[in-house]
């Protein structure tokens, strides 16, 4: 693994086939991201991980690493972009952090704090998204969906069930489940499914275990997401040590 690219002035080694995001995380460099998850094929929809290569921009999670690239990520221009994208996601759905079971464990909320999103920025859209409480063990609160497709990918690629899919187009795009009734109770989802673990926000919730840990003591209440995201990523043994 001799090839390297430059990320904000640091030299990042990469293996053939790695994307910029994969190589950066493996070497201990954080690039903000939401729809990327180290265990699934990247698809690049949230665009939070957008980086700059000269005058050109690209999503780092899908961009193949190449030797000699000079990439900028932690610059005000891109952080301002990320702030706006987070504001857009907040405005698109119905996010009531104070009453949300995922508060403190939510990636969107954590990104908001870390990127210093202090205002709503946009007029909220208040979409009408009814809950699905049909399943005896699981609640779906679509209000919080950010359309990252992680549950779609987990259920399809890992669980082999395709319980989730996206329907509609444009601003009406929404999450659906795999049943004629449109209800979760009529799917073959199980509590042990990978799809149950991956929602970065508070859509897929286990019933009767809410608020088991008080707000204030949760994951991102301890340390910001920029410090913790590296813990989830597979690290290369030869990679630079995390400072």
């Amino acid at each position, binding site marked *: 693994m001799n090839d390297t690219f430059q990320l904000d002035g640091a030299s990042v080694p990469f293996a053939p086939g790695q994307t910029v995001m994969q190589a950066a995380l493996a070497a201990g460099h954080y690039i903000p991201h939401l729809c990327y998850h180290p265990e699934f094929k990247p*698809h*690049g*929809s*949230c*665009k*939070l991980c*957008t980086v700059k290569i000269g005058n050109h*921009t690209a*999503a780092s999670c*899908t961009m*193949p690493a190449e030797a000699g690239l000079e990439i900028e990520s932690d610059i005000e221009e891109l952080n301002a*972009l990320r702030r*706006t*994208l987070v504001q*857009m*996601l907040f*405005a*698109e759905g119905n996010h009531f952090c104070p009453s949300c079971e995922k508060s403190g464990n939510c990636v969107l909320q954590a990104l908001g704090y870390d990127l210093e999103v202090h205002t709503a920025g*946009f*007029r909220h*859209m208040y979409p009408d998204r009814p809950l699905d409480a049909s399943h005896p063990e699981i609640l779906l609160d679509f209000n919080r969906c950010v*359309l990252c497709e992680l549950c779609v990918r987990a259920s399809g690629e890992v669980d082999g069930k*395709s*319980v*989730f*899919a*996206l*329907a*509609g*187009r*444009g*601003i*009406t*795009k929404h999450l*659906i*489940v*795999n*049943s*004629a009734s449109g209800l979760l109770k009529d799917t073959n989802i199980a509590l042990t499914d990978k799809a149950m673990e991956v929602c970065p926000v508070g859509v897929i919730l286990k019933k009767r275990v809410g608020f088991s840990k008080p707000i204030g003591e949760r994951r991102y209440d301890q340390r910001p997401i920029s410090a913790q995201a590296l813990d989830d990523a597979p690290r290369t043994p030869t990679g630079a040590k995390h400072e």
Partner: protein
Amino acid sequence: MSDNAGSNTAHLETILGCHDHDPGKLLQILREIQEQYGHISPDAITRIASQLAIPRARAESVASFYSFLHIKPDGAYRVLFSDNITDRMLGSEELMRRMCQQLWVEPGKVSEDGLVSINTTSCTGMCDQGPAMLVNGRAITRLTHQRVQEIGHLIRNRTPLADWPADFFRVDDNIRRKGLLLDNKLAPGDALRAALTLGAANIVEAIKASGLRGRGGAGFPTGLKWEACRNAAGITKHVVCNADEGEPGTFKDRVLLTSYADLVFEGMTLAALAVGAQQGYLYLRGEYRYLLEPLQAILQRRRDKNLLGEKILGQPEFDFDIAIHLGAGAYICGEESALIESLEGKRGVPRNRPPFPVTHGYMQQPTALDNVETFCQAALAIQMGAEKYKAIGTTKSTGSKLISVSGDCPRPGIYEYPFGVSVRDVLQDCGAANTRAVQISGPSGICIAEGEFGRKLGFEDLPTAGAFMVFDDSRDMFEVARNFVHFFAHESCGFCTPCRVGTSMLKQTMDKIAAGHGTSHDLNEVENLDRVLQTSSHCGLGRTACNPVLHTLKHFRPAYENRLKSLDFEPAFDLDGALARARQMTGRDDTGAHLNTEET
């Protein structure tokens, strides 16, 4: 529209059988079921999914992506008014209002008796003979109050579409100026014979030498594309023709497919020879559904003449055939990788690139994908030779270009020019007077004002896919931009955050300004959204969605400023507007039913 469940099942089985129960044909299957039954019922989705052995959610996911597929019951007659700005300029909004009144139905809803629904749709490609509409997918042109009224009567009497006056469905070519392409005297097979004389590798060389560039707007050198596809690893290769002419204001591909289809197929066939492809696809936009049967007849004729099929023109190793795939109402499918996804029976979402279609296209196999006009030009270039072809047009834009002229001019239609023609010359030829602005290459293109009419069409200056919409000095350029912004919001595929949310926010902001609540803060907001859309969108749709606003702001800022309040900030929430529903329900519209929120 039979209620007999048994016969429905049988019919569904026939459709599935025609497509070999192939999940890759999902969109074609859904489209045919839509055509047969007027909507795709939940039960039909369940059965299709189980027959194709795919998750039900996937079938629903695809069905809900395309505008012309309905997963809820719709009217027996589905009326869609084409909503391009050129249709509006010809009075489409008033026509639609009257038709809704005549048939007692609200826009976007189904009438109580299930007879009819009336709504708008993105440009149907009839801008030179608008206002236009689609009724159950069939194009109707040259709408007038009288024609709309007659259509209302036919619907009320439940007259089958087949018995409607044929003149309603007449679509004219309106060719106003011919050149190299429209004046060609080639007989079917001529260019192909010339190509066979050259040999596969030399076709690529000849196309490279001709300087031919893609006519879909981006202008990528066709020869390089074919060379990359020819050199790509893999035995199975494809040629795909992009006939998803969705850019509002463009209709030249419709004319080529109506009157020059042999040349299109000829170009595809010699491309297949050049790259080594065995199968071709024509991706035809759903709005041009009426062209399907004529095109299939032409394909059959070419098979009969041995210009398609096995051992074409007696060449032992030259097998190639073309299938037609219909779209179902999605502008995004004009983007090449979204088109390929759609061709594979999926949602039309643009792929991540690299890899590019030349190496990983249809079914992840090497694919040469070009615009309708590009294939025609390629056939001409091969027939006349690279040197002769290169002499036409300009250095970096060789050959000729078809321009679709519409809007404020007495002679809208198709004009062919060598590249390098000035905007002023086109305006003169179409008889435009008092022109305020021209929108070049559709909403995603460029809006230019009077001082720039000396600019030239070509890749050096004004690249264009062909749309040329003329606006005279009676037009409000703010409303033009607002129409385009609505278009982008409607057509965003929704894959990436900036485009999905940003185009809707842009629409809200433009509507706020239109309603008289805009402030200078909102204009700043537009510039901020533009930055986000341009730097982070997944594909060209998002990256260009702000262009109409930015270009009109640059040239026609007073059209915006006259609408602004002098305040720095004004809430978008309209108190009086919030009472609209209550007013409608109570049938009241007196002053007491209004809140006066205006400051005096």
